[in-house]
């Protein structure tokens, strides 16, 4: 009778432990999966936040430049410098053109004076040719060669007079045109000056805008870095809290150890003699032996 009870106790313990281990594996497997999913979500949050901060950092590096690449600020500065140089060049050329036009007016006056001298010489040549013709007529046959020279001189005198009139006309045209050129150069210089002033004002606005943009992005990055640090800190806290699963799993495995102790005790009963081999090994080896979770020392770091 007692043997039967002892045997039933032993069988019950075997069955109980088998079912318990099965349930422990299910519970631990389920909590393990859930905890790992939660940890993956935490990691994903950190990754997303990190990606966002990295994009802000990229934006700032485009603005600031670096790695052999000029930033937008530098590019704008260069462009402003180039336009200012160009406007200065236009202004200087317009001033030079104005000055050259003024000099050219003086030169055309010199040409007009020279043309008048040439006209006087041409007149003298004409009179000389007339005198030569009279002299040739007086000498009759002997003056034939004189007549030829007189004819050539008169033709030359006419050609000089015609050419001189042309030069004089050109000089007058130039004299009339050059003040207009000087006026245009003056207008161009004034236009370039006005453009320079307006551009300088706009460039100043652009520079201010760029600096402001730098500040905004730098602020965003600073806040982003701080936020990311917080996200990482909270993620670490979450990871710390998620370790409840390990403690729960170990706790359940320790209960398995207690049931196993009961099995070993039952195996010493006469009716269970020789059945100790049927008792399964502990679910989880613990070289430190059975002990509760020590929340006082949990997380302590001891460096040697």
């Amino acid at each position, binding site marked *: 009778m007692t043997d039967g009870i002892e045997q039933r106790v032993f069988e019950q313990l075997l069955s109980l432990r088998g079912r318990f281990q099965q349930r422990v594996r299910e519970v631990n497997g389920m909590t*393990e999966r859930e905890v*790992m999913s939660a*940890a993956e979500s935490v990691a994903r949050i950190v990754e997303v936040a990190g990606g966002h901060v990295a994009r802000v950092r990229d934006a700032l590096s485009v603005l600031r430049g670096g790695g052999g690449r000029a930033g937008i600020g530098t590019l704008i500065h260069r462009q402003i410098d180039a336009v200012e140089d160009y406007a200065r060049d236009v202004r200087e050329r317009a001033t030079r053109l104005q000055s050259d036009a003024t000099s050219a007016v003086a030169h055309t006056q010199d040409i007009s004076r020279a043309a008048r001298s040439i006209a006087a010489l041409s007149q003298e040549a004409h009179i000389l040719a007339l005198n030569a013709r009279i002299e040739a007529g007086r000498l009759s046959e002997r003056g034939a060669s004189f007549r030829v020279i007189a004819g050539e001189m008169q033709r030359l005198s006419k050609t000089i007079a015609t050419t001189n009139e042309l030069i004089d006309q050109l000089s007058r045209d130039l004299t009339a045109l050059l003040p207009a050129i000087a006026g245009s150069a003056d207008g161009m210089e004034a236009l370039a000056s006005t453009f320079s002033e307006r551009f300088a004002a706009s460039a100043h606005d652009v520079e201010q805008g760029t600096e402001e943009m730098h500040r905004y992005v730098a602020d965003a990055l600073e806040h982003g870095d701080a936020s990311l640090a917080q996200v990482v800190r909270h993620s670490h806290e979450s990871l710390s809290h*998620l370790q409840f699963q*390990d403690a729960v799993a170990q706790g359940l495995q320790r209960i398995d150890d207690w049931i196993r102790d009961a099995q070993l005790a039952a195996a010493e009963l006469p009716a269970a003699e020789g059945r100790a081999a049927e008792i399964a090994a502990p679910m989880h*080896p613990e070289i430190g032996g059975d002990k509760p979770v020590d929340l006082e020392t949990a997380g302590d770091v001891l460096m*040697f």
Partner: protein
Amino acid sequence: MKRALVVDDSPSVRQQVGLALRQAGFDVVEAADGAEGAERIGADPTIAVVICDVNMPRMNGLEMLEKVKADAANARLPVLMLTSEGHPALIERAKKAGAKGWIVKPFKADLLVAAVKKLVA
């Protein structure tokens, strides 16, 4: 990027330690027990630090530590024990075997990362 080996029979603990270390810029490899951990250390000279549980099947963490440290090539390899155990005799055994630190589970991820960074600095 420094490589850290995490040896623990619990996948979730390996994952949590791995996430914390990856966020801190480590390259993390894993082993599920002491025997696999010792194998990985022997095969991968780029491992810069080991974080090792104590209670594990096949080969426990202290046995793994003693085996690894018996090889002169691993004399300078820092090993940090991460375990729910806190018995002074076990801590002393780890210290004698050449471990550089002992952290009691459940660990605080920030403190673990700080300890690991200190060991590889």
